[in-house]
């Protein structure tokens, strides 16, 4: 029997809903017990348990954008993805008073506290972690600047909030009017000890990284976090060799989510195939494996000895794993 998506999660209530721009909704989540939620640092994300019709249980990751110094609530921004698995559409149907489960925050995108200058390059919904990150830097008296790309001025509500809060350190550029940011200009002749943080779509991450490399920036000064969009695939059966259990993995649910919904917890952090925590051994398969992670080496992927259940899946049939 499925226990649902909320096993082991912190119960919260939606206490405020605000649609800030076309397709982007802010949600304020307050603890059900009226106390305080776990503390976090700027750049952290939480995962939200999502229950869809037909016994489908997902978990989506969202960056926290509220203040790290006030944990009476969390705030997240959700962009609606009409072609996705249905998680963001579910989040856009929520109303004040609805209940959810959220994980403890995890930070895979922390501020580098030894840095001398912190440069943020952000685009789209990627702007959200900047709110707590810049607040931390401001409190520490550290030097920072942010270069935010928006498609149009209608699209720029969050960017304007950021600039209202942090003033002249924020540079907003409307890419539909003036073209994309000149990353080389942003990264040229910057003082030693500068760090760049890239928060945006994968094309932006790739551009900024290659520009930084060409300008002699070392990897330890270039930071980015990529939320991989969960792809839907084919349904398949997941057989757990140690317990003998067989679980059905529906087309739009990840193997990790299915395990969690059945009360089986395995380590995870990023849920995007990058951190390596959930690496699992494959014992037997009568199907192909879609490896969507960046963690395993190409040779491991080729021999299908392991896979990352947070993001990768079988393309039908039965997959026997060492759990």
């Amino acid at each position: 029997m499925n226990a649902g998506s909320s096993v082991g999660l912190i119960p919260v209530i939606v206490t405020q809903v605000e649609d800030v721009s076309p397709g982007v909704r802010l949600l304020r989540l307050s603890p059900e017990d009226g106390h305080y939620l776990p503390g976090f640092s700027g750049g952290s994300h939480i995962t939200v348990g999502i229950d869809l019709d037909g016994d489908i249980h997902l978990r989506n990751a969202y960056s926290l954008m509220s203040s790290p110094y006030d944990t009476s609530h969390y705030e997240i921004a959700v962009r609606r993805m009409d072609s996705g698995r249905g998680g963001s559409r579910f989040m856009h149907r929520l109303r004040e008073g609805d209940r959810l489960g959220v994980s403890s925050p995890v930070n895979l995108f922390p501020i580098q506290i030894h840095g001398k200058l912190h440069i943020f390059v952000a685009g789209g919904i990627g702007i959200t972690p900047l709110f707590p990150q810049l607040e931390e830097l401001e409190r520490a008296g550290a030097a920072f600047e942010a270069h935010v790309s928006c498609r149009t001025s209608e699209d720029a509500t969050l960017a304007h909030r950021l600039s209202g809060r942090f003033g002249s350190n924020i540079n907003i550029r409307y890419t539909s009017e003036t073209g994309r940011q000149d990353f080389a200009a942003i990264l040229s002749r910057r003082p030693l000890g500068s760090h760049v943080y890239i928060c945006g779509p994968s094309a932006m991450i790739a551009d900024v990284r290659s520009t930084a490399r060409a300008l002699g920036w070392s990897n330890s000064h270039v930071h980015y976090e990529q939320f991989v969009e969960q792809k839907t695939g084919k349904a398949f059966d997941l057989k757990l060799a140690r317990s003998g259990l067989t679980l059905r993995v529906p087309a739009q649910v990840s193997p990790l989510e299915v395990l969690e919904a059945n009360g089986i917890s395995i380590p995870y952090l990023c849920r995007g195939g990058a951190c390596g925590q959930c690496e699992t051994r494959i014992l037997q398969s009568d199907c192909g494996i879609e490896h969507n992670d960046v963690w395993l080496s190409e040779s491991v992927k080729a021999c299908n000895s392991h896979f990352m259940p947070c993001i990768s899946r079988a393309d039908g049939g039965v997959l026997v794993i060492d759990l």
Partner: protein
Amino acid sequence: MLITGIKSRPVYDRLTPFPEALLHLVVGQGSGGTAMSRLIAEIAPGADIEVMYSTESFTGQNHLAALKDAAPGRFDWFASNAALSQALHDRLSQAFMGTRLYLAGSESFIGLAMKVARQFDLNADEVLREHCGSLVRRVWCVHCDTYSENITQRVFSCSGCGKPLVVRDHYSRLMGAFMGVQGDAEVPGELPEASELDT
């Protein structure tokens, strides 16, 4: 013998060019001159190279003339490690991302220069350190907070408090020094056998 089997010592690199660097800052002291000349010859022609050298040396090694010839661009030299470290600080505060730092010389010198580099948040992928010459040690007295330079013996007399110190094989990167503790703390006068450090 109380101090046995403690294993730790900084692991140094061999200087080789960082191909992606916009500026190669080659900095060294005494015996480090040979490693500096070798490195400069390996850096692709036309690259931006600046050289800083201190002639202070425990072993009397001086490569000033050879380095002057090898340096293709700016060359500065200093009579002491302290003067060089001040100049390094000034240079790094004007430098940009894309700079790579190469250090060559005694352990004490490298420790001093790394202290400066850390102030500018230079990481392992931006600095290389090659140890050259004798492994004489800089030793910090845990009892009186004094540094003794160029120590070659396992047991020596602290230059601050005069206590007979035993050198522990334990190195602090922040201090750029090994630790010295009183060798006869249990029974006055009963010291570990005198021996050469692995210099």
